[in-house]
Every structure is written in structure tokens, then in C-alpha cells.
């Protein structure tokens, strides 16, 4: 019985049909999705912190308005994705608890600090740029609510990408000091951005099932390559240097070969030893606790009205 269901499920996926919340699905598929989509949601939410750090110090009113809108979008992305995760039968509170207790992860990149204004540019250009490559691919993911959330998110991301590149170009073409800041930001954010795509396919624990179920549509290494090829030309155009001495055009493959990623650093940060791991989660817990009285008051107000006490 279960076998037959599983075969019908795979047939549906092979036929490029979407799986919807009430459809039968293997427990492993459900669990994989909950892990992946909630991790994605947590990344959007935690990702607000490194940029939010610069809102009060944005160099102009224009920059400030743009950054607020960008960070608000990221909150929205988090909520679209929580909404999609909840269709799999898990509550928001369970998800938040998983994040706050470290049971669920978020993208490693947000454990790096934003030291200068150029970092805000580097995040929009590189971090959102890498996210876009991943998210464009995920528009075709097999789970309907996830796919629809990705389509919505992708529409909003190109604004993020452009505002980041605009900041970088302005600084890269500005005073010597600004140029140095831009280069320094690129130097620090380049490698962590490459790590965003996850381990090499040969070392990735989750790739095979995810590909067969079409949760993932392209492999980590393929997506990383797309990102590198785009970013190299964009850096060239504004006179910045990618910090990789092995980076060079490969005429045979028609793409850029690049140097070795320091996976030790990656695992160190994943395992909690990055610059900002503790700070990010502490801030989240603090914000959540400080918002408790608002939630309590809203619930109390509804209760009161339900009991016919409305004046």
C-alpha cells in the first residue's frame, strides 16, 4: 500500500506536477521540506540584523529609505516562507523555538559582522546575488507552496541586488578611502558568499533525495558556478578585484575556474564559532520576548470582545 502510494507520488513529481499540502507525501519528503523551508525562513529573518545594523547610520536619507524597504522585504520573505512551512503541519511557535534553541539552522553568511557601509553594498550585491541564483532555481521546486513563495520572492530580489551593486559602484568609483572600503568588503564577503551554496555535491548529505524529489532542481556546485560567472564580470566593471588568485577564465568550459573554498571555516561557523552566532540568536530571543506583551494584549482584547464586553 505505502509502496504504491510512494510510486504514484514519484510519478507525479516526474511528470512535473506540484505536490500540494493535502496530497499524500512520504514522511521523509515532509521532513526534508520542513527543514529546508524553515531554514530558508530563518535566514531571511536573521538576515535582517546585519543590514539593520546600518539603518541609523545610512549616509543619506535616500540610502536610509531604500535600506528600510529592503530590510522590510526580508521580513516579508521570512513570513512567506513560514507560511509555506506551516502548510506542512508545524506551527510557527515550534519553528521559532527550533531557531532559538539552535535545533534549526539559518544561513551561515549572517554570522559575519557588517563593519562598514560598504558591507551593506556587499550584502545586497553578493549575498542577495547568491540567494537569487538559488531562489530562481527553486521556483521550480516540487512543493507548490514553496514554489509560489519563491516566485513572489524572486520578483522582489532584483531591487535588493541592484541597491547593493549601486552602493558598491558608488564607493568603488569614489575617493581612495571609499575604494579601499569597497575592496575590503568584497574581500571579506566573497568566500562566505560562495559557501552559501553549501558543500560540494560530492560531500553533500542531502542532495540525492532532494534531487530525486525535485525539491532541489540544480546542484550546489552548478548554482555556485552561475554565481561566480555573473559576479566576476560585475566586479570588473567597477574596478574591484575578486580575492582569488586562482580565478581564471576556462575557455573549454566557458566559465571561470576558482580556488579552493576553506570548508574548515565553513564548519567552524556552522558549529557556532562564527563572529556573531550568539549575538544573532540573543537579539532574536530578546525581540521575541519584548513583543510578548503585544501578543498577550491582542489575545486579551479578542477574548474580551468575544465575551460581548465591547462598549
Amino acid at each position, binding site marked *: 500500500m505505502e509502496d504504491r502510494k510512494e510510486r504514484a507520488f514519484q510519478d507525479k513529481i516526474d511528470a512535473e506536477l506540484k505536490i*500540494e499540502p*493535502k*496530497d*499524500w507525501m512520504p514522511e521523509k519528503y515532509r521532513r526534508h521540506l520542513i527543514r529546508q523551508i524553515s531554514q530558508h525562513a530563518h535566514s531571511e529573518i536573521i538576515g535582517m540584523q546585519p543590514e539593520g545594523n546600518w539603518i541609523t547610520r545610512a549616509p543619506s536619507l535616500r540610502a536610509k529609505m531604500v535600506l528600510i524597504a529592503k530590510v*522590510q*522585504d526580508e521580513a*516579508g520573505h521570512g*513570513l*512567506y516562507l513560514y*507560511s*509555506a512551512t*506551516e502548510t506542512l503541519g508545524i*506551527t*510557527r*511557535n515550534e519553528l521559532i*523555538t527550533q531557531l532559538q534553541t539552535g535545533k534549526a539552522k539559518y544561513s551561515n553568511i549572517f554570522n559575519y559582522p557588517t563593519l562598514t557601509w560598504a558591507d551593506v553594498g556587499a550584502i545586497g550585491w553578493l549575498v542577495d546575488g547568491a540567494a537569487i541564483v538559488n531562489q530562481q532555481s527553486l521556483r521550480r521546486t516540487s512543493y507548490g*507552496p514553496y514554489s*509560489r*513563495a519563491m516566485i*513572489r520572492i524572486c520578483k*522582489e530580489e532584483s531591487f535588493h541586488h541592484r541597491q547593493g551593486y549601486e552602493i558598491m559602484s558608488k564607493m568603488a568609483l569614489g575617493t581612495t578611502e571609499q575604494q579601499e572600503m569597497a575592496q575590503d568588503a568584497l574581500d571579506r564577503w566573497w568566500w562566505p558568499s560562495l559557501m552559501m551554496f553549501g558543500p560540494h555535491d560530492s560531500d553533500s548529505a542531502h542532495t540525492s533525495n532532494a534531487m530525486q524529489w525535485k525539491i532541489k532542481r540544480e546542484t550546489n556546485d552548478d548554482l555556485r558556478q552561475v554565481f561566480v560567472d555573473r559576479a566576476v564580470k560585475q566586479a570588473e566593471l567597477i574596478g574591484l578585484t575578486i580575492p582569488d588568485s586562482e580565478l581564471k577564465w576556462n575557455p573549454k568550459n566557458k566559465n571561470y575556474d576558482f580556488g579552493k573554498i576553506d570548508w574548515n571555516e565553513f564548519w567552524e561557523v556552522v558549529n557556532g564559532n562564527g563572529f556573531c552566532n550568539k549575538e544573532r540568536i540573543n537579539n532574536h530571543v530578546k525581540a521575541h520576548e519584548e513583543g*510578548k506583551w503585544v*501578543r*498577550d494584549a*491582542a*489575545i486579551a*482584547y*479578542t477574548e474580551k*470582545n468575544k465575551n460581548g464586553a465591547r462598549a
Partner: protein
Amino acid sequence: MRNDNLPVWEVFVQPKTGAHFQHCGSVHATDKEMALQNARELYTRRQEGSCIWVVKAEDIVSSNPNDSESFFDPADDKVYRYPTFFKVSKKVKGL
């Protein structure tokens, strides 16, 4: 561990006047006004809609996709519901 799970509301947006409302996701809220405000803030930051409906998720009744065959089958043998069922001479115009 916490019991402050706010109720889930499904959100439907009408992209422009005259169009069908489309489901676009959900929000959490304690009452109608908050649900509508949250939906506006979350799903129409770029003027994606001209009107929003919010409905408590628990009030929505759905058919079960696992029974979709038996549920939708009755429509299967009623080909006369389509105009192509009827033979009409080519000479007849405007029909």
C-alpha cells in the same frame, strides 16, 4: 512551550478590479482588523492588489485531493455540457 500561537488567516488578493481573487498565503492575527492589516503589509507592499480577503484558516472547507477521482468523476460522463457535443451545420452563423 509557549501557548501564544495566534490564529492563522488565509489571504486572498484581487490583483486588479474585475479580476478573480487569488490565494497568496497566510498571516497570523487575533482578529479581522489585524488580519487585514497584516495581509496588506505582507502581500501588497508593491500595489499587488486592489482588494484583500482574509478568512480564518479553520473556517475553510476543502475537498480532499486523495479522493479527487470520486469527487470530480461525476463530471466525467456529461459531455453534453460542452458546445462541441452538438452538431451544427456550417451554414448556421452566430451560434
